């Protein structure tokens, strides 16, 4: 468990999606998604609301079964999951301490350490339902870390966390990656800004629009000025789509044609799909 950071290698991925899609009552929530997460690698999903980020994450975790394509995970994979939302009934008596032990036993000193790391050591005995949004996110993150996962899956982990806390949590997440050598699959709540330590950004819009490495803002004086001290933990992912999703679900392509659907191989795309790197021309 106490291994140093392993660089991404071409071993069997922790989790992978191959051209995976989910359809519900005739509508595709997401389609044609391919991604892999290697040990030690941080993969960030971005995209507008309803673009299938959470759905893709659930496919990778095996919570949802793909309608088409494949989803696979390494055998015996240990997962730590921070879901986007938890709806806990107020009648359920659940303290932070108990919540940490929800899916497995945890040593008391490790529980304390994890809560201290996420900045909520004083809340160990508090009822979960009395926490603020930001405190709740920290409790969920502490719980996921405590599992010492091979794969850490974070669905908008810093939602509701204030400006400074966000920076600190991003630093913590990359520290965890270095310490555990785990792979991280993360959904960003921001369309353009991702964690600087991200190795790969995937932009979704019902399908994979484009993917590539983020351009660290730390190197760019203009962004450094814009983000101030946040610059070292955040990065801008700059990308241009070659098509627009219209409100009625149809798609307008760069060449002006409008189609009902959007596929990599439909002849309207010049680039941007199938892993074509397309970023940072800033």
């Amino acid at each position, binding site marked *: 468990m106490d291994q140093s950071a392993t660089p991404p290698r071409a071993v069997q991925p922790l989790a992978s999606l191959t051209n995976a899609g989910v359809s519900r009552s005739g509508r595709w929530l997401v389609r044609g998604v391919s991604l892999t997460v290697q040990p030690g690698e941080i993969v960030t999903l971005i995209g507008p609301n309803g673009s299938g980020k959470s759905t893709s994450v659930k496919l990778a975790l095996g919570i949802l079964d793909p309608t088409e394509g494949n989803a696979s995970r390494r055998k015996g994979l240990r997962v730590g999951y921070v879901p986007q939302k938890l709806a806990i009934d107020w009648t359920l*008596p659940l303290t932070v301490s108990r919540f940490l032990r929800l899916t497995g036993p945890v040593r008391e000193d490790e529980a304390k350490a994890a809560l201290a790391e996420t900045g909520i050591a004083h809340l160990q005995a508090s009822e979960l339902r009395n926490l603020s949004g930001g405190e709740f996110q920290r409790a969920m993150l502490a719980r996921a870390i405590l599992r010492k996962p091979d794969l850490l899956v974070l669905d908008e982990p810093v939602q509701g966390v204030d400006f400074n806390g966000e920076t600190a949590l991003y630093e913590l997440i990359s520290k965890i990656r270095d310490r555990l050598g785990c792979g991280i699959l993360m959904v960003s709540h921001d369309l353009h800004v991702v964690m600087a330590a991200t190795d790969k950004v995937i932009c979704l819009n019902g399908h994979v629009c484009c993917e590539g490495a983020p351009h660290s803002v730390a190197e760019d004086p203009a962004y450094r000025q814009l983000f101030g001290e946040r610059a070292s933990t955040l990065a801008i992912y700059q990308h241009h789509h070659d098509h627009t999703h219209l409100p009625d679900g149809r798609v307008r392509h760069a060449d002006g044609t409008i189609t009902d659907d959007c596929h990599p191989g439909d002849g309207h795309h010049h680039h941007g799909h199938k892993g074509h790197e397309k970023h940072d021309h800033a």
Partner: protein
Amino acid sequence: MLESFFVRALIAGTGVAAVAGPLGCFIVWRRLAYFGDTLSHAALLGVALALLMEINITLSVFTVATLVALALMALQRRASLSADALLGLLAHSSLAIGLVCLAFMTWVRMDLMGLLFGDILAVSKTDIAIIYAGGAAVLVVLALIWKPLFAATVSPELARAEGMNPARADLLFMLLLAGTIAIAMKIVGVLLITALMLIPAAAARRFAATPERMAVMAAAAGILAVVAGLFASLEWDTPSGPSIVVAAMALFLLSLAPIPATQRN
């Protein structure tokens, strides 16, 4: 001692309440009150079928409640009607079908009031044996699936992602619910079984710091309600089921009383 019908009722009621409390906690946490109602109303259909085919009533009620639970789970996945409307539809139609079937069986002399509202006079030694054997089985299985069931109550997706099997825990929980309904029917009657599960759990909520403690306290509150209700039923010649539920409701109201000195935030 077991020769007295009242002592038999007390023993049987205590056994039922001890099982109903912990299960009731999950019903409250998971917001399954209406679901529980639907299953218990289907119990009447189970009684009618048992009389028609001359099989054991408890077994028949358990089977029918299980089938209704499975049908509900399947129908909810299709979801053409809202879950709420679906439950209301099934709850009342199974109750109505049960009543109509019973009315057709003119050769059976059945105390309908006792079926609907419970009947302490009807509790036999065999009933006590069934309640305690069945109740012990329910509690043992509940203890075994507690961890995954509780994790699935907090979040099924989290439980699934982290290697648990929430679907299996849910299925077993449905069976436990059906079993509890089958053994509780005689004491509280089909219309009020859910109340015996729900109200003690609600009364225990304020005083419980952990889910396990809430389950134990719900069982204790249920037993208290059964004892008080049965004595009231004997005293004023009221049907046992409603008397127990009224006693439980009184406990719940008591639990709401302000006690600022012992409360901390």
